[in-house]
């Protein structure tokens, strides 16, 4: 199967750890993906916020290129990108007038039934549980892990068509595969406020704080995410939140790919775990400790 890879801007910038770890585990599993040539930004929330047509047209270019190159499915690890790509595909399928305008503008056809996958769909669906399980060399048993999904993976459900929007479990299943214990908590899909991360930092800190403190209350050692925007808020702003609410969190935030990599026995350095703002040292030590016990 020909798998297209749409990294999106974040994975080339602030969330480079995500791409590094992703490529690392794919390499370990011997799975090949190809970056869509000359891909462009999906427009993210800015486009849909103030220009609906643009929010369809920008992702459409990427989809059309992928289709032209004969890919059957696209992996967009960034939850925002997968959300926008899926949304564009949905609009193109349901709004013939808009589709005509866009294909005319792009001077490319687009009729694809190509599947668009977020990171979790890719791991569970394309890679498969068996494959992942077989890769686990260093089970993380004893580690309590909270999976944070946020909004973009699950909502709107009619477009995302992914898991239960109110109680998703896919990431928890992946966590379980690593041998770690998934932690259940109340705010799995509450919004962290990513869209206004830069423009309304106070609001964002309140929302992200709610999520982090709930996770903390339920006794997790760390948080895994599959979205660079979530990661930015939970990781980069964590220190600030601790200061604002005057309560320590100390929750390392890992990408799901990093957690899988750790269980595969890959060196944390190779997974760029040291690229996070909240140091994961304690957790890494705990993992080592657990491994030594066995």
């Amino acid at each position: 199967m020909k798998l297209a890879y749409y990294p999106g801007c974040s994975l080339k910038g602030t969330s480079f750890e995500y791409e590094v770890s992703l490529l690392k585990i794919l390499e370990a599993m011997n799975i090949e993906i190809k970056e869509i040539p000359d891909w462009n930004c999906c427009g993210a929330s800015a486009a849909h916020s103030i220009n609906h047509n643009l929010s369809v047209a920008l992702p459409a270019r990427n989809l059309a290129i992928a289709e032209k190159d004969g890919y059957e499915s696209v992996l967009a690890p960034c939850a925002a990108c997968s959300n926008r790509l899926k949304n564009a595909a949905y609009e193109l399928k349901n709004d013939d007038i808009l589709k005509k305008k866009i294909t005319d503008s792009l001077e490319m056809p687009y009729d694809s039934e190509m599947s668009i996958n977020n990171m979790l769909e890719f791991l569970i669906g394309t890679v498969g549980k068996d494959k992942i399980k077989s890769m686990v060399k260093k089970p993380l048993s004893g580690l309590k892990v909270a999976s944070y999904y946020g909004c973009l993976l699950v909502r709107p459900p009619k477009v995302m068509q992914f898991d239960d929007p109110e109680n998703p479990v896919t990431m928890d299943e992946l966590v379980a595969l690593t041998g770690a214990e998934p932690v259940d908590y109340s705010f799995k899909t509450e919004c962290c406020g990513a869209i206004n991360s830069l423009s309304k930092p106070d609001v964002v800190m309140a929302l992200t704080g709610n999520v982090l403190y709930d996770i903390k209350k339920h006794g997790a050692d760390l948080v895994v995410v599959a979205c660079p925007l979530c990661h930015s808020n939970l990781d980069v702003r964590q220190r600030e939140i601790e200061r604002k609410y005057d309560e320590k969190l100390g929750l390392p935030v890992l990408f799901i790919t990093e957690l899988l990599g750790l269980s595969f026995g890959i060196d944390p350095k190779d997974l760029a775990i040291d690229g996070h703002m909240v140091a994961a040292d304690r957790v890494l030590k705990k993992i080592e400790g657990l491994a030594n016990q066995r």
Partner: protein
Amino acid sequence: MKTVINEQNRRNFAAQVESMLHDKLAKCYQCGKCSAGCPVNFEMDYTPNQIIKMTELGMEDKVLNSKTIWLCVSCNTCSTRCPKGFEVTGIMDVLREIAEKKGVTSKVEKEVQMFHEVFLDNVKSNGRIFELELVGKYKLKTRHLFRDMFLAPKMLEKGKLKMHGEKIADLNQIAKIFKDFE
């Protein structure tokens, strides 16, 4: 302040919103579940259900100048849970877009609006986002020069801030898309 409902203006505005939204305002029965679940309700001047009602009543000025439409984080919680399947998140997009097109500058939440504008400019000129440039331009525009600056050194240290942005090859096509759809 009282609102005099002008039937023609009301119809025009409601019709414009409905056609962009592909949904009917009358569907909303004002149960308030959207407002109940909205994570940013606490900062809003009008609750989401009020925005819907006011749109139906043609209160264009109030709606387009509201904080609410810019504070909405598009998390889709409202639409997902709406018992009537109404596009609550969608109406926020539509109202922002109308505000943008009509040149209504949000007096209270201009940072959000500016961020979106700067973001799209960045896409327009690079095809992709160059984060450092985006942040810099945004800060210049909003004059919030020092906000979040304390994050920068550590982010640089961690390698999160790239000093050079990527540009795509076919920038012409991007320019065309913007020309066709802006």
